[in-house]
């Protein structure tokens, strides 16, 4: 039965190959069947594997060795699939939410001329993502890691005729490369120290026995650098907002629900290292909470519906890393799981809004849509309440647990972390309800032409929205941290902090409601109060809507010096002067030398004979004088 794991991975690959090679010729109906059918089958197989796993008690992972990739001396690099509780949660999210988004895409991308290419890329992404979460070895994980980067690049730049979108794809790819360098170094260090890249073996080596020759913190930080790239954490967060250039279902699948959580998965998977790397864990917690806070402040002033959601995603990812940084890996995965539902629902809802408005993304030109597209509105509202942390929706449970462990964990929890995270939660509730308000309530600010064409999306889209909204509502009742506890034990809570639990829970709820009330207060009544606040704090608004000018700062710090060095040193000095100069010089030398020598070749037979004669005479003379 364990062979099912291989099939889960291979089915989307088959979809990619079929749709990629023949999709254009076989028609959209065929592409739809292959492109959606295979992921759904993969989801079914994942459920089957999950039942198998639980039938065996859930403590012994399913392992499927596939082949030996390379043997270096007596060390081998094996490709094997590994299915334990953590992989199970991730695989079910990826295939489940992935399949839903595939179905949604059939409606959203219906009119696109590159329908087959779109589904081929989407299936390719699923293949690599499943490789990432099912691989037993860090090497297989890395192949998946790079592969999802590739798929992300292809899909961000899906409408590559627009240079702006192609550039966004490049930016995502290059930024990820920086993180990947750290990841690779971490892998080298682990292979050097332990001679294996199997993650369960590495965890076991760090958990028990004599300390490996490599410091857990060094490896931990290096791997986390990789995670900051993929999961858009400070300082490598700049690519994710630009990645919204891709089709909206892509933003939902790759840049919200699955790929960007790969960094969190990596940290949770390598928890054996991080449990013994206090410093690395602190770094993760601080980076996570800082990212969460700053991204949330930016999201408050964004006016593009997808940009708000993009910064919200960065912010939520920061909260996940905060949880991982204080040792609550199961809670981080819990938030990955709930976030996948409500953020996918929000992005797809945004896609439905954009679809209804014929491509309009600016929330200043929306408003009053609640009655026009009711299904989208209701699902969007449920998901908004979920991400804001209104009980008893999914986001409430996971966010509350993150806040609780940030406060009380014995592995680096502190009131400061809690305070920043709580402020983030407040802003999250505020900007999400602001988004809801500006989009769906109040008077319409749409152009007349656009308003005339507003229509509810087809059932393939609204159906998916409804499913995701239900999951966002009830998903939190499934306690993932408890489910993962045999694998990822939760950190201990010091005894004197236990009596804080209930008050903090109440504070979380109050925060969520305060965000809602704040948004209603500032943005109700035609957003007059918000405009007044803005007028008083124009400078702050400029900084926030300029995204703290991080892009501009990177441009000054890295972009321009790089262009200068590339132009002056590499192009003019290196390429044109040294390489071209050396080649041209050699060629010119040969040409001139040939010009001189060609004078000997006069075409005159008698002169040649004279040369022969002279040569022979010289030879004779030489042989005589030498004896």
């Amino acid at each position: 039965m364990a062979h099912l794991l291989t099939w889960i991975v291979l089915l989307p690959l088959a979809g990619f190959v079929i749709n990629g090679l023949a999709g254009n010729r076989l028609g959209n109906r065929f592409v739809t069947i292959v492109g959606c059918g295979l992921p759904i089958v993969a989801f079914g197989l994942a459920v089957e594997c999950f039942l198998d796993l639980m039938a065996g008690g859930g403590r012994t992972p399913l392992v499927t060795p596939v082949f030996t990739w390379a043997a270096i001396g007596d060390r081998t690099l094996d490709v094997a699939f590994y299915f334990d509780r953590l992989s199970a949660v991730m695989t079910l999210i990826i295939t489940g939410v992935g399949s839903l988004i595939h179905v949604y895409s059939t409606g959203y991308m219906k009119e696109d001329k590159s329908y087959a290419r779109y589904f081929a890329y989407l299936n390719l992404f699923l293949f690599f993502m499943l490789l990432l979460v099912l691989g037993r070895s860090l090497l297989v994980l890395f192949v998946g890691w790079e592969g999802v980067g590739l798929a992300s690049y292809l899909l961000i730049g899906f409408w590559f005729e627009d240079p702006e979108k192609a550039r966004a794809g490049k930016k995502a790819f290059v930024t990820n490369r920086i993180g990947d360098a750290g990841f690779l170094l971490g892998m080298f260090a682990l292979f050097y120290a332990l001679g294996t890249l199997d993650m369960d073996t590495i965890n076991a080596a760090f958990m028990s026995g004599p300390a490996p020759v490599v410091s857990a913190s060094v490896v931990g930080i290096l791997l986390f650098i990789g995670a900051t790239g993929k999961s858009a954490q400070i300082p490598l967060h700049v690519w994710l907002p630009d990645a919204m250039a891709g089709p909206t279902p892509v933003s939902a699948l790759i840049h919200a629900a699955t790929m960007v959580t790969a960094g969190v998965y990596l940290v949770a998977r390598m928890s054996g290292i991080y449990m013994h790397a206090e410093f690395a864990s602190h770094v993760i917690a601080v980076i996570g909470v800082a990212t969460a806070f700053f991204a949330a402040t930016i999201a408050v002033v964004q006016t593009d519906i997808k940009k708000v959601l993009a910064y919200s995603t960065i912010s939520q990812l920061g909260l996940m890393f905060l949880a991982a940084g204080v040792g609550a890996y199961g809670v981080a995965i819990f938030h990955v799981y709930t976030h996948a539902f409500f953020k996918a629902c929000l992005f797809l809802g945004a896609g439905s809004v954009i679809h209804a408005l014929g491509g309009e993304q600016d929330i200043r030109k929306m408003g009053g849509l609640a009655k026009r597209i009711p299904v989208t509105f209701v699902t969007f509202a449920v998901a908004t309440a979920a991400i804001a942390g209104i009980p008893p929706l999914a986001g409430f449970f996971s966010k509350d647990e993150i806040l609780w462990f940030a406060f009380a964990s014995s592995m680096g929890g502190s009131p400061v972390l809690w305070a920043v995270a709580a402020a983030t939660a407040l802003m999250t509730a505020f900007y999400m309800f602001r988004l809801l308000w500006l989009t769906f309530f109040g008077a319409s600010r749409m152009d007349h032409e656009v308003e005339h064409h507003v229509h509810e999306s087809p059932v393939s889209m609204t159906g998916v929205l409804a499913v995701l909204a239900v999951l966002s509502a009830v998903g939190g009742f499934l306690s993932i941290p408890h489910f993962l506890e045999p694998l990822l034990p939760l950190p201990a809570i010091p005894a004197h902090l236990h009596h804080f639990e209930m008050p903090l829970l109440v504070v979380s709820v109050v925060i969520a409601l305060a965000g809602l009330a704040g948004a209603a207060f500032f943005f109700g009544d035609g957003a007059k109060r918000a405009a007044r606040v803005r007028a008083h704090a124009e400078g702050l608004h400029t900084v926030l809507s300029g995204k703290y000018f991080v892009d501009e700062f990177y441009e000054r710090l890295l972009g321009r010096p790089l262009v200068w060095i590339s132009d002056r040193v590499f192009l003019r000095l290196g390429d044109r002067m040294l390489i071209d100069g050396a080649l041209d010089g050699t060629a010119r030398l040969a040409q001139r030398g040939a010009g001189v020598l060609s004078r000997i070749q006069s075409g005159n037979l008698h002169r040649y004979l004279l040369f022969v004669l002279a040569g022979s005479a010289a030879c004779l003379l030489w042989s005589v004088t030498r004896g």
Partner: protein
Amino acid sequence: MDKLQLLMLLALALFSVGLLGVVIRRNLLVMLMCMELMLNAANLSLVTLARQTDTTAGAVLVFLVFVVAAAEIAIAIPIVLLLVRRRHTLDVDAYADLKG
């Protein structure tokens, strides 16, 4: 001066005449004839020295030279004929097309 020395001198004279002919004459056919002259001078010296040392190797080599000479002339004469057909002259200076 015995007979062998005389023969060697004759060979030297023949070779010199041939070489001189090749170098100074311009007529292609004459040049070819002079080359044959040089080959036969070499043959004469081979036979003479074979006789002097009382061995047969030199005599055998002569046959090889005959063959080479025959082959050479068999190729050279058609080439000359083709050249002449094209330019209507036997003057070797007319054929300087390979000037560098």
